[in-house]
């Protein structure tokens, strides 16, 4: 039996829309941005799980919910079988050793007034991973070598501004992995980096995941990179998962019309096979007031009738653990 590290059931996060004083007097209904609206999935031990979708689909919010940076509105999160949906800050703290996050922008996620050594020592001290100063230093050196910032003594005393973008993201990665977590979320870890160094950072993450047997949630809008990173992928649209399966299933046999459109829209680096002849129209609607029924019906090219406008399609297994939420497959 495969060990499940993260199990999410019907997770929701609604952000209240701020309204002016007068608006609150005249309007009785509080509006919500339904950033994440009922998602369920699980991540197994040592697995790389991709969460893909356009901006505004709720993928970042999902990632932040999983590492307890924000409180969910509804639903359940289980970590190694334990319910961690609602915890007090004191209860969360020991868990921080177990799950970590790598943010998108390495130019903003590192404290400019701390040296690389301090940045990496901080989690070790706060989470009481090490017992002595010697052990602390050894750990910091070890992780620096692990992320190929070699020799470590050359980087320990440097400040973030003395590093290139790629080196910064290595430091951010090292900071996440230094406490040997069981689960790491990486939120678009390479979108701010130059193309020629993206692969390097991703390969580094892959090797760390393999070494520590970490479960990894890779959040991205770039399906071409996700294809070469992930074991399984879930496609999100307006706060919902519309399709989920192994990477090959998603790439070679996409079922949901949105997944198909998304994969067709990915630019192909081959001038002999050009893609852009068929493109779906429009842009992602507002998550404050998502379309009723299937949220994709306003842009869908395979619209099958009234049911798409009135009834929300459930996420069902169509065989081989390939899940899709579309009325075409549920009837």
């Amino acid at each position: 039996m495969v060990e499940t590290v993260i199990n999410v059931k019907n997770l929701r996060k609604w952000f209240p829309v701020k309204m002016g004083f007068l608006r609150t007097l005249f309007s009785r209904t509080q509006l919500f941005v339904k950033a994440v609206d009922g998602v369920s999935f699980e991540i197994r031990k040592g697995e790389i799980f991709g969460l893909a979708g356009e901006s505004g689909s709720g993928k970042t919010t999902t990632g932040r919910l999983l590492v307890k940076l924000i409180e969910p509105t509804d639903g359940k999160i289980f970590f190694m079988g334990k319910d961690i949906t609602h915890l007090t800050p004191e209860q969360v703290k020991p868990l921080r050793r177990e799950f970590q996050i790598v943010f998108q922008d390495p130019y903003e996620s590192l404290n400019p007034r701390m040296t690389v050594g301090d940045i990496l020592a901080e989690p070790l001290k706060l989470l009481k991973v090490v017992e002595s100063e010697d052990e602390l230093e050894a750990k910091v050196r070890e992780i620096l070598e692990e992320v190929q910032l070699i020799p470590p003594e050359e980087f320990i005393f440097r400040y973030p501004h003395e590093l290139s973008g790629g080196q910064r993201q290595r430091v951010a990665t090292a900071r996440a992995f230094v406490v040997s977590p069981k689960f790491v979320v990486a939120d678009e870890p390479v979108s701010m980096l130059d193309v020629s160094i993206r692969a390097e950072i991703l390969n580094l993450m892959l090797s760390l995941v393999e070494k520590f047997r970490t479960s990894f949630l890779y959040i991205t809008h770039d399906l071409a990179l996700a294809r070469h990173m992930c074991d399984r992928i879930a496609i999100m649209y307006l706060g919902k998962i519309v399709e989920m399966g192994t990477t090959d299933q998603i790439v070679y046999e996409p079922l949901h019309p949105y997944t198909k459109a998304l994969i067709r829209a990915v630019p192909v680096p081959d001038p002999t096979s050009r893609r852009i002849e068929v493109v779906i129209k429009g842009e992602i609607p507002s998550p404050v007031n998502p379309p009723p029924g299937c949220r994709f019906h306003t842009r869908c090219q395979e619209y099958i009738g009234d049911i798409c406008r009135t009834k929300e399609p459930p996420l069902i297994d169509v065989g081989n653990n390939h899940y899709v939420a579309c009325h075409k497959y549920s009837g």
Partner: protein
Amino acid sequence: MALLSVQNLTTYYKTLRGYVKAVENVSFDLEKGEALGLAGESGCGKTTVALSLIKLLPSNGEIIRGKIIFKGQDIVSMPESEVRDKIRWKGISLIFQGAMNALNPVYTIEYQIIEAIRAHDPNVSKKEAKERVRKLFELVGLDPSRTRNYPHEFSGGMRQRAMIAMALACNPDIIIADEPGTALDVIVQAQVLKLMKSLKEKLNLSIIMITHDLSLISETCEKLAVMYAGNLVELGDVVTMFKKPLHPYTQGLIQAFPDIKEKKRKMESIPGSPPNLLDPPPGCRFHPRCKYAMEVCRKKVPELKEVEKGHLVACHLVGG
């Protein structure tokens, strides 16, 4: 003769610590109706090339050498007033990077496009200009009834379309699109590229597409020019360049773009990072990151040589 011919363009930025050698000896031609992709990493000088073409460099930037021949006239030696009256918008127009922020938020889109039209063609009446804006909106696939909207009322994709409409306002021969795809979602990005392709055919436009994303160029352009650290390292037609890239940097860059349709593989990258252009490495600027670097690469700057008709490479490995 080519519509635009850039010859040995060299542009430096003056800073307190010396000259930043942003663009060095860049030459290429652009024909009428042709799309050229200018690719490279951030800081390789692609945007500086674009700004040099319309002489819109920041005050510390300077074209040191070279010629930019547009329709038989050299833009570099042309006085500023003439560049403003004849070249910008009418000859060459630029779609700036970041459509999200390039429009003025306090004016309507109609106002901004009319301003551009009337500044370059004072004889056009307000009424005619308004009519033109509506036509432009139709051309780029926007609803003509929304010309008087403000930028914040448009989505990202619509703003990008409005920027394209504005660039077309004075019927230019060449459009330079600086990173037209970034900050847009894949589907919207595909929509915008499709629009640019159809405009190119409809209006017989020449396009220079500046981007770090080679796959965008492979979708839309006929020619590809790859820049590295201020130098043009390879130039040729897109199909040959993708099939048989000759410069090690081009090879690495193409490898760095995974194809979604191929089997799962280990991703490849180019080790190291681009050099500081205040003090670029001697010889070939790519040699510190090149796995084939030889003795000569450290000393001698490779010249751009034609290896096949229309395929030029600057590398000591190629062509003796």
